[in-house]
């Protein structure tokens, strides 16, 4: 028996094929060209003919799959799983919230913007995408590991946390070090000393303040840290855009007065 899905997609196949042949004959196709995919003669307008024929092909693919899966009805699933119809599982178990869709989207968007902006941005997007693909896959894996959601969660944490935490820590430190170095290199010599002193003092005083008040809510501490990190990163980006201060080689541009590698900066 032909399934409803088959009828739909086969109908679309017939419509697309008919339209392709019609377009072929009315746009300069020869007698046999449009019917033989151009094997024996011209097909007429290639764009219209080609796209309509591909639409017919994809509709055919969906029609065949639909027929062979019996429209993927629950009844067909029951037969495959050899269970009663009432025991057919839902198509998706409850998965709850997940950060990976957003991060994967960010990876894709970063890659896309990188295409326009800079290869470095593209590469960053690619790395984000690969990392999120692995995280996403392992999340899916853990959800199907056992029938106990708590245990599945533990399994995932046990497997991924020992990798995630050191990697994220390294990446985070790397970003901060690069950002701070850009800030210090962009400032004058004296300015850099002042920035290092003032920022160091602020960090020290903030840490002292927090340690003296253990009752401060977790959210406030997280907020202070987030603002601080964001400030460093944003300043680092602006500093990198402005560029480093001028460095003058001691003894001239090409060391004409000696071989010294010493530099003097202002």
């Amino acid at each position, binding site marked *: 028996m032909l399934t409803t899905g088959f009828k739909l997609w086969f109908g679309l196949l017939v419509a697309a094929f008919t339209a392709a042949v019609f377009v072929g004959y009315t746009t300069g196709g020869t007698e046999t060209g449009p019917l033989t995919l151009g094997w024996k003669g011209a097909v007429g307008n290639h764009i219209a003919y*080609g796209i309509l024929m591909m*639409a017919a092909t*994809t509709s055919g693919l969906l029609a065949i799959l639909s027929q062979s899966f019996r429209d*993927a009805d629950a009844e067909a699933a029951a037969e495959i799983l050899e269970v009663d119809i009432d025991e057919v599982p839902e198509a998706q178990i409850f998965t709850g919230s997940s950060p990976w869709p957003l991060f994967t989207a960010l990876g894709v968007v970063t890659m896309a913007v990188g295409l326009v902006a800079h290869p470095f941005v593209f590469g960053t997007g690619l790395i984000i995408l690969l990392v999120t693909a692995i995280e996403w896959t*392992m999340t899916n894996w853990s959800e199907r590991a056992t*029938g106990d959601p708590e245990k599945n969660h533990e399994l995932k944490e046990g497997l991924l946390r020992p990798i995630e935490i050191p990697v994220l820590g390294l990446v985070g430190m790397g970003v901060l070090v690069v950002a701070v170095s850009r800030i210090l290199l962009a400032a004058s010599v004296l300015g850099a000393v002042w920035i290092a002193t003032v920022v160091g003092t602020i960090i020290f005083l903030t840490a002292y303040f927090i340690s003296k008040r253990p009752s401060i809510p977790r959210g406030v501490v997280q907020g202070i840290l987030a603002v601080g990190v964001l400030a460093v990163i944003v300043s680092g980006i602006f500093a990198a855009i402005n560029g480093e201060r001028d460095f003058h080689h001691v003894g001239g541009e090409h060391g004409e007065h000696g071989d010294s590698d010493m530099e003097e900066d202002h």
Partner: protein
Amino acid sequence: MATILPPAPLNRPRTLMVGTAFITSAALMFFGCLFSIYFSIRSDTLAWGMEWFPENAIELVPGGMNMATLSISVATMGWAAYAVKNDDRIHAYLALILTAVMGIAMINQTVFYYMDIGLPIDHSEAALLLYVITGAHLVMVGIGVIWLGLLLLRAFGGQDTSRHRDLVSAASIYWYSTVFIYIFIWLFIYIGK
């Protein structure tokens, strides 16, 4: 004392395959449009008595090698699906790894050919379409390889049994469509020029 955990809930069969079929049909339409533009402009260029690709610019061997590589990968992909269906873990690993290696080999050969071809992308419409079509196909193969890699991750985690056969079957639908598209590239770009 060892704790016996309940088994994972059953998966509803075919969901992943149906989703993959929709995505694959979209990919086919994408290439359908690119090929249609290719044929359209090629036909017009030749009708004006102009050259499409410069003589000897497109070699037959790299395309043929790629076609052979991907043809073998069809067999290894089928082998992977068969092995998973029969709970044959070792063969499933082997077949999935081999298929991914074939994909990487194909990417490698194509990139090498790009460096060797000596046809700049802005040489003509023909060159542009050549790089866009084959480049887009390389991306498709690359996605397939990553997909196989992620499948292997899950397989190493124990999800390589007949309970999870849809995972491999869905990947195989995608992989076969990748090879299907390459047949067109091989026939009409490398052979038909």
